[in-house]
């Protein structure tokens, strides 16, 4: 384990208490809504903020440990912030060389290394420009080069793609993925975008209200959400209840038939595309048939995402054509069906 952190900190309404481990060469995404304490955690790891209590050790060396505190400028790390934050009074090359110069490397050597890194991130020949003359994507690439140039033990990325437009984000994300694969140190990526987390991270730690709500591989988190926030990100309906053999009695009332035996407190997750809607009660094979009321509908590509209220609250995706032919509108009473085998069940 390269980075081991136990951080406790209170600041205003934020009450942060989080454990985080990141191995060598591993990329851990800290995913969470705004105000969850993600960026505060990152500032603590960077040494810009002292935790009230806890321990941060990197490769066995204590960076934060009660009274001991290694200030930011003595930590071998690189940080990429959301807005690139290239120094406006320096050229791009001098920005990249900055971390080498502060660590005592002579100007010619620093220039040469900076130039090599600029070439590596695809900014060959742009070293003489001012940061203001770069596009958003170029600035973020330069910021990445600046963070990596000193060969840090830890790389911290704070919403590195958020400020970019959709098309640039796609390109820079792919490049970032390549650089992270080559990086031998530990990476912590803070983001509120599940796509960034899924695409870039080996492991995802979901932080809500200052606590770790869920942790696991992107696939685990995506298919087995444990909080409503994660379920929404993954696009699933999350139901919680108690397993009683082949059925689950939901905490909110309602019963869900499932394919395999379940017992004790469980979650049931339903994908929106596995929910079918009918105007009258259908007779058929699906074991789950519930009455529901349509409370919301949002176009979602070629489908319409329908929010259903009732004993079993669900989200259903139906094609726009079907939505029109059924004459659906918010307030409509419908019947919803789901095959028992389409319900994912896992322990709470």
């Amino acid at each position, binding site marked *: 384990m390269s980075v081991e952190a136990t951080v406790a900190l209170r600041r205003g309404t934020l009450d942060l208490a989080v454990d985080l481990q990141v191995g060598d060469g591993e990329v851990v995404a800290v995913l969470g809504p705004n105000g969850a304490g993600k960026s505060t955690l990152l500032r603590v790891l*960077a040494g810009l903020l002292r935790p009230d209590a806890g321990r941060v050790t990197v490769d066995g060396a204590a960076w934060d440990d009660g009274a001991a505190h290694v*200030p*930011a*400028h003595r930590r071998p790390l690189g940080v990429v912030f959301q*807005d690139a934050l290239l120094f406006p009074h320096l050229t791009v090359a001098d920005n990249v060389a*900055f971390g080498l110069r502060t660590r005592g490397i002579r100007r010619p050597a620093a220039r040469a290394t900076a130039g090599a890194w600029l070439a590596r991130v695809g900014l060959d020949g742009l070293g003489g420009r001012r940061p203001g003359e770069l596009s958003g994507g170029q600035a973020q690439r330069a910021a990445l080069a600046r963070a990596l140039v000193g060969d840090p033990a830890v790389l911290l990325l704070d919403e590195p793609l958020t400020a970019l437009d959709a098309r640039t984000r796609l390109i820079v994300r792919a490049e970032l993925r390549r650089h992270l694969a080559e990086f031998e140190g530990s990476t912590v990526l803070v983001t509120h975008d599940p796509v960034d987390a899924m695409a870039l991270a080996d492991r995802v730690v979901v932080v809500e209200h200052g606590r770790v709500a869920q942790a696991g591989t992107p696939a685990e988190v995506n298919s087995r959400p444990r909080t409503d926030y994660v379920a929404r990100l993954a696009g699933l309906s999350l139901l919680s209840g108690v397993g009683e053999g082949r059925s689950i009695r939901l905490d909110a009332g309602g019963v869900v038939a499932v394919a395999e035996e379940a017992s004790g407190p469980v979650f049931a997750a339903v994908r929106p595309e596995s929910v079918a809607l009918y105007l009258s009660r259908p007779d058929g094979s699906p074991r789950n048939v519930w009455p529901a009321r349509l409370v919301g509908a949002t176009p979602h590509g070629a489908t319409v995402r329908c929010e259903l209220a009732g004993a079993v609250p669900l989200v259903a995706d139906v094609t726009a054509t079907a939505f029109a032919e059924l004459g659906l509108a918010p307030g409509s009473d419908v019947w919803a069906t789901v095959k028992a085998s389409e319900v994912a069940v896992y322990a709470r």
Partner: protein
Amino acid sequence: MGRDLLIRVTPPAVERSAARSRGRPRSEPGIPAPLLFPAVLGVLFLVLPLIGLVIRAPWSAIGPALAEPQVGQALRLSLVSATLATLVSVVLGVPIAWVLARSTARGRTLLRALVTVPLVLPPVVGGVALFLVLGRQGIVGRWLNESFGVTIPFTTAAVVIAETFVAMPFLVISVEGALRAADARFEDVAATLGADRWTTFRRVTLPLVGATITFAGNFPGTTQTMPLAVYLALQRDPEAAIVLSLVLLAVSLATLLLLRGRWLGRTAP
């Protein structure tokens, strides 16, 4: 930064107002009368004395008046003292501004109030206060006199001290404002790149607020170069005083228009 904003904001606004006025052309930008009248009155009040100065100036005698050796001497003394005062203000004032803007030490509010008092103090009170400290019988002045045989009053040093006393608060306030307006996140970035606070100050903070320091440091220096000369001249030759005042006016105006416009883009038209 501000100038960029202006440029970016202006075109749509212009288009919009152009589109609006296509039907019925508007001749005036439209300042409401209750604002326009006092504004014009205020400008007259501020500008008339300057116009008076220009009208009463003995234009034919300007050359000889400026060439008088005593005037030249006074000008030179003023120039030297103002330059020194500027240097002292920058060297001592910038660190004060940094402490006020960046440190979290307690008592900053009190410190800010104390440091900026000379701005609102009547000059005479400031003079008396300085004299009580540095005069031959003053708290520091007596010690200086007895220990080193140094006397301050009526020397160039006294002029430099008095000018610093007036100029430094202006510099501290301007630079503190600039430091607060500067994005502190750049300093965080510098820290994560291995720069300690002093290196960060030198390599990041100072360049970012350098323009303000140049202006805030130069402006009082320039404008205070000549008052002394004016004062000295007024006692001997009122006409020379008017001439010098004119020079002062020209220099001040040039400073305001050029320096402020060039280095503090945000206030430029």
